[in-house]
C-alpha cells in the first residue's frame, strides 16, 4: 500500500485541511494490482500512459485504414474495395486520426508532463481525469462498431457535411453522433482539468511567464477546447434532431440551410486544427533549446504568438467555404484574416531557427523529429497560404492539393511532434534511453516515407485530381503510385516505433535524472524513471533558473 496523499498543507494555494480536489480522492484509494488498477487509477502518470497507449492503438487502426485507401489508389480503376467501403475508410480514417490519435496523444503528454513541469503532485481533478480517459475507448469502440452495422459506418467524410450526413446518411449515423459526443465530453473534461492544474497547482515561485512553452501552449489549447467543443456538440445534436426528430436545421426542403452546417462546423473546425497544432508548437519549443544547448529565443513572443493564433483562429473559418458562394466582402475578409495568421506562425518559425543559430547542436532522435517538424510543417503552412488566396482556392478546393496541405501540417507536423515528445520523454517515463540506432532508422524511414507519400499529392491536386474518390483519371497514375509506395513505407516504419517503445520499457541504457545534456526544465530534477508520486512536497522554485 503506497500512501497517496499529496501533502496539501504545503501546496501553494490549498492551505485548508480538506485541500484541493487533488487531495480528496487519495484516502480511499488503495494500491491495486491487475487490470482493476488501470481501470480505477487516478494517478496522472498512469492515466497519461493510458492515453498514450490508446492514441498509439488508434494511430495503428487509422493507419491500417489509410493503407486500404492507398492500396485502392495504387492504380487507377477499382480493384480492392467497393466505392461505398472506400468512403467509409476515408471517413473513419479522418475521424480516428483527429479525435482518436492526435488529440488523445497530446492529452496523454499533458497528463504526464504538465504536473511534472509545474511542480504539482498530480492533476487538479484526478478522478475526473480517469473518467475523461475511459470515455474514449467506449466512444471509439462504438464508432468502430458502426462499420459492422447494416448500411455500414459513416461515409460522408470527416467533415460530415449535411445533408449528406443527415438525409442521405446510413442508419448508423446516430451511433456516430453518440460516439462523437462522448469524445467531445472527454476533451472538455480534460481541458477543464488542465486549466485548473496549470492555474492553481503551480509550485510556489513559478509565475505564468516562467512556465515552459509546452505548458503555455496547452493552457491556450485548453481554452480553445472549452470554446469550440460546445459548437461541435451543438452541430451534431442538430444533425441528430434532423435525422430522428423531423427538424430542418440543415434541410432545405423544410426551410433549413445546408450552408449553416458548414458555418457551424468550421467555426469549430478551424480552431480544432489549432488544437491539434499548438501543443506541437510547445513540444518543439522545449526540444529545440535542449539539443541546441541554448535558451529559447523570444520566449515572450512565443507566448504572445500562440495567443494571437488562438484568437485569430476564430475569425478565419470561412476559408474552408470560399467555394460555397460567399459574397465578395466575405471572401476578402476571410482571405485577409487567414493570411494574417501566417504572421504569428512566422514569428514562431523564426524563433526556432534563431534558437538553433550558433547553438551547440546534437542530433539525437527527438531533435531529428523536432527539426523535421520545423521544415515540413512550414511547407504545410506555405500550401495553406496558397489555399488562403480565395480566387486560387476556387481551383484548389476539394482537390488533392488540400489533402497534401493538411497532411503536411498534421503528419510531419502534429504527429512528428508527438513522436519527438515520446523519444524526448521516454527516459523520464521508463528510466531507459530509447535505442538511438533504431530511433534513427525510424526517423529516416518516416521522413522519406512521409514526403514520398504527401509531396506528389500537391501535383496531383494542382493537376485537378479531386479528393475522396476511389478511382481516378489515367494522368494521375504515377503520382498516386508514388504516394502509395510512400504510404506503405511510412506505415510499416511505424512498427519500428512500437518496437523502440517496447524495447525501451523493458530495458536499455539507464538514464539519469537529467537525461539530456541541455535539458533544464523542472521534470529533469526528478529521478528517471519518475516515481509514481512526485512533488508531493511542492518544490520551492524561488530562484530556480527557468528556461
Amino acid at each position, binding site marked *: 500500500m503506497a500512501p497517496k496523499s499529496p501533502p496539501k498543507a504545503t501546496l501553494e*494555494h*490549498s492551505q*485548508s485541511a*480538506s*485541500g*484541493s*480536489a*487533488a487531495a480528496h480522492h487519495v484516502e480511499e484509494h488503495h494500491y491495486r494490482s491487475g487490470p482493476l488498477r488501470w481501470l480505477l487509477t487516478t494517478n496522472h502518470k498512469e492515466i497519461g500512459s493510458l492515453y498514450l497507449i490508446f492514441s498509439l492503438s488508434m494511430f495503428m487502426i487509422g493507419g491500417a485504414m489509410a493503407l486500404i485507401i492507398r492500396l485502392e489508389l495504387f492504380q487507377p480503376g477499382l480493384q480492392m474495395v467497393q466505392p461505398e467501403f472506400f468512403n467509409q475508410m476515408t471517413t473513419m480514417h479522418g475521424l480516428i486520426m483527429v479525435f482518436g490519435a492526435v488529440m488523445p496523444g497530446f492529452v496523454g503528454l499533458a497528463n504526464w508532463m504538465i504536473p511534472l513541469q509545474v511542480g504539482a503532485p498530480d492533476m*487538479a*481533478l484526478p478522478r475526473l481525469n480517469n473518467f475523461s480517459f475511459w470515455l474514449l475507448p467506449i466512444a471509439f469502440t462504438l464508432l468502430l462498431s458502426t462499420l459492422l452495422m447494416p448500411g455500414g459506418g459513416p461515409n460522408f467524410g470527416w467533415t460530415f457535411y449535411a445533408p449528406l450526413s443527415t*438525409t*442521405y446518411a446510413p442508419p448508423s449515423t446516430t451511433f456516430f453522433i453518440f460516439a462523437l459526443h462522448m469524445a467531445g465530453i472527454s476533451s*472538455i473534461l480534460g*481541458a*477543464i482539468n488542465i*486549466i*485548473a492544474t496549470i*492555474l*492553481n*497547482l503551480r509550485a510556489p515561485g513559478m509565475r505564468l511567464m516562467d512556465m515552459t512553452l509546452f505548458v503555455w501552449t496547452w493552457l491556450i489549447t485548453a481554452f480553445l477546447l*472549452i*470554446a*469550440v467543443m*460546445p*459548437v461541435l*456538440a*451543438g*452541430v451534431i445534436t*442538430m444533425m441528430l434532431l434532423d435525422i430522428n426528430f*423531423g427538424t430542418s*436545421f440543415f434541410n*432545405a*426542403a*423544410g*426551410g433549413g*440551410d445546408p*450552408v*449553416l452546417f458548414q*458555418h*457551424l462546423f468550421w*467555426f469549430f473546425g478551424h480552431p480544432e486544427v489549432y488544437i491539434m497544432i499548438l501543443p506541437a508548437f510547445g513540444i518543439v519549443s522545449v526540444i529545440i533549446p535542449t539539443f541546441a544547448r541554448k535558451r529559447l529565443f523570444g520566449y515572450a513572443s512565443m507566448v504572445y504568438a500562440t495567443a494571437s493564433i488562438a484568437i485569430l483562429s476564430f475569425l478565419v473559418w470561412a476559408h474552408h467555404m470560399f467555394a460555397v*458562394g*460567399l*459574397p465578395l466582402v*466575405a471572401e476578402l475578409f476571410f482571405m485577409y484574416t487567414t493570411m494574417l495568421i501566417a504572421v504569428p506562425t512566422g514569428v514562431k518559425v523564426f524563433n526556432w531557427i534563431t534558437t538553433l543559430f550558433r547553438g551547440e547542436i546534437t542530433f539525437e532522435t527527438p531533435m531529428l523529429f523536432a527539426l523535421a517538424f520545423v521544415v515540413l510543417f512550414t511547407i504545410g503552412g506555405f500550401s495553406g497560404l496558397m489555399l488562403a488566396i480565395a480566387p486560387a482556392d476556387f481551383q484548389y478546393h476539394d482537390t488533392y492539393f488540400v489533402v497534401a496541405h493538411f497532411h503536411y501540417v498534421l503528419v510531419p507536423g502534429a504527429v512528428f511532434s508527438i513522436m519527438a515528445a515520446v523519444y524526448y520523454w521516454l527516459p523520464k517515463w521508463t528510466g531507459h534511453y530509447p535505442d538511438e540506432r533504431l530511433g534513427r532508422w525510424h526517423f529516416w524511414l518516416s521522413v522519406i516515407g512521409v514526403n514520398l507519400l504527401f509531396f506528389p499529392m500537391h501535383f496531383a491536386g494542382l493537376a485537378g485530381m479531386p479528393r475522396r474518390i476511389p478511382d481516378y483519371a489515367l494522368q494521375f497514375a504515377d503520382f498516386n503510385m508514388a504516394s502509395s509506395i510512400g504510404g506503405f513505407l511510412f506505415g510499416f516504419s511505424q512498427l519500428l516505433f512500437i518496437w523502440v517503445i517496447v524495447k525501451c520499457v523493458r530495458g536499455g541504457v539507464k538514464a539519469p535524472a537529467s537525461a539530456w545534456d541541455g535539458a533544464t526544465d523542472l521534470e529533469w530534477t526528478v529521478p528517471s524513471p519518475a516515481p509514481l508520486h512526485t512533488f508531493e512536497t511542492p518544490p520551492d522554485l524561488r530562484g530556480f533558473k527557468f528556461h
Partner: protein
Amino acid sequence: MTPVQRTVTKTLFALMMMVGFTIALVPLYDVFCNITGLNGKSASQPRAIVSGEVDESRYVTVQFITRTGSGLPWRLTAQDRQVRVHPGQAYEVRFAFVNHGKTASRGRAVPSVSPSEASLHLRKITCFCFQEQRLEAGERLELPLMFQLSRDLPENVHTVTLAYTLYPAAEEQLTSNVIALTQGGGA
C-alpha cells in the same frame, strides 16, 4: 471554495456561455441572412407590387432553373427559361408541375436566388413556392410566378438566377401514412 473549485466554476461558466452561444447561432444566422439576403433565400410571403416608374434604360436577365430533389417523381418546368426585364416592371412566368408517379403526393418548390445580393431586390407578388402542392398520379398543374425586380437592384447585377428545387413534403406524408396505417390496423 478552494482555488481549484473557483477555476472549475469559472471554466464551467465559460462552457455554458459557449453552449448558449451555439444555440443562439442558429436564429442569429437566420436573422443575419434575412437582413442581408446572404444565403440567397427569398421572402416566403407575398409582397405587394410597388407601382412606380419602370427603369426602361436597363435590362436584367432573369434565369429560371428547376430541379427535382430525391424521392419525388415530379417534374417542374418553367415556361420560359429566361426573360429580360426592366427593374420595376412586374412580370409573370408560368411553371408546370407534373407528377409522373403512380400515387398522389405532396411536394414543395424551394427557391434560391443568386447572386445573393439580388435576393433582397426580388419581390415575389405571387409564387407557387409559398405553399405545398398536392398532385394526383399523372396530374399536371400550371402555376404562376409573378415577380418584380426593385429599381434599387445594384448596378453590377446583370443576371439574376432563380433556382427551384422540388422536395417531397415529408412530414405531411409521414403523418398521413401513419394515419392510414393505424386506420388499416384498426379496421
